[in-house]
């Protein structure tokens, strides 16, 4: 959110926490976020077979947060979507 909409840190945290339906404290909690990221399939830190990786995860993040991500738009353009 800092990079796409120039949000300052607190605003960016509020925005993301809101989109994920969690508190800002939970957003900063690695235990909460590890489970949530796997649930939402937006990429996790350990190598889990079948979990979204790379551009797959990025595309899901773009939709979830309603942000335009350059490389995701390029993928859509290449696929004619």
């Amino acid at each position, binding site marked *: 959110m800092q990079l796409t909409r120039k949000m300052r*840190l607190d605003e960016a945290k509020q925005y993301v926490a809101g989109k994920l339906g969690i508190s800002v*404290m939970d957003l900063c909690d690695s235990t909460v976020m590890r489970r949530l990221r796997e649930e939402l399939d937006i990429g996790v830190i350990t190598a889990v077979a079948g979990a979204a990786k*790379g*551009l797959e995860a990025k595309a899901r993040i773009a939709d979830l947060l309603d942000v335009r991500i*350059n*490389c995701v*738009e390029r993928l859509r353009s290449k696929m004619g979507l």
Partner: protein
Amino acid sequence: MAEIQTRMGDGYTVSMTREEVREDLVAGSADAARRGKIPILEPDELDYLLEMFASPTRIWGVERGHEAVLSKDGSTNSLYSAQLSSGVGLPLSREQAFRTFERAFGFDTMEIGHTDYSVKPAKPIVVLEQNHVEAVLHTTIIPVFYGFMPNLGLYYQPDGPFPNPSDLLPKGQIAEARAATEEALEVCYNDLVWMTEKMDEVGADGINYDTTASTGDGEFLATLRAVEWAAKNTHLAVEVGMAAECVLGFHGQLEYNGKRLAGMWPHQQMEVVQEAGAHVFGPVVNTNSRKSTPWNLARAITFVKACTKDAKIPIHPNVGMGVGGVPMFEIPPIDVVTRCSAAMVMIGKADGL
């Protein structure tokens, strides 16, 4: 009286009394306030810094809920390059290094950049750079930047075609030096725009103009104009990281939107970078190796606070070897690196580092 173990700006340990630490905190902040004509730190902020330095723990951190993000400059050179880039010489490709930064080190953004990390040497091999950016875009989740230094110095003789102001100024040839700067910055600007466009073409998430104004106000102007172009013509996030705390006036008369660039301090640099359309600004405050880390950190935070107070874009101060309060040493000691980093967020109100 119990002694506090901290560091000097060269990284060596020093023992100081509580009073000496407090005096250095106040003096460091006052130095920044005098130079930048900005407010000194508040008493409660000085108290926080004092307690932080007085704590015997080796590691310091932000309070829970105050976590900030970490952006990167210098690309993957830290892993595969040599001492010249503070690299550790690992036999890793840039793609491998990038994924290591994401997965093992937990960075929030990362860069691909040329080993010779300036825009001029990167131009001839741009298709290689584009290919490496594309490769990591497919396999990683964190924002992918392409980074380089504008490094106007490479456009002057002997490395480039233009007469060198550093040679002309000592001879009193001020008009000639200014003319050389004005010509060189146009070429540098064109190169910055050209490389930026190439990275936008392949879908990079952002562009980082690093160590901006290393060669003074001419380089700063070229970069600000490139930021303007990138903000209007691409979808890239634009990050501008500075080279030093004060813009050197090799030209002395260059302006951006009516504001003279020479002599600008971080909060003034922030205003023009923000005006140009950048997404992230990374101020630099240089470490004085003859002063203590408390002095250096209080000084750095005073400058950064003046940026974050009025900024409408995220501020990611440079906190690393020789900047942001951190000692100027090849392996900055972790006891003060963690303190400087946390204090930049807690007191400096940084949006990231």
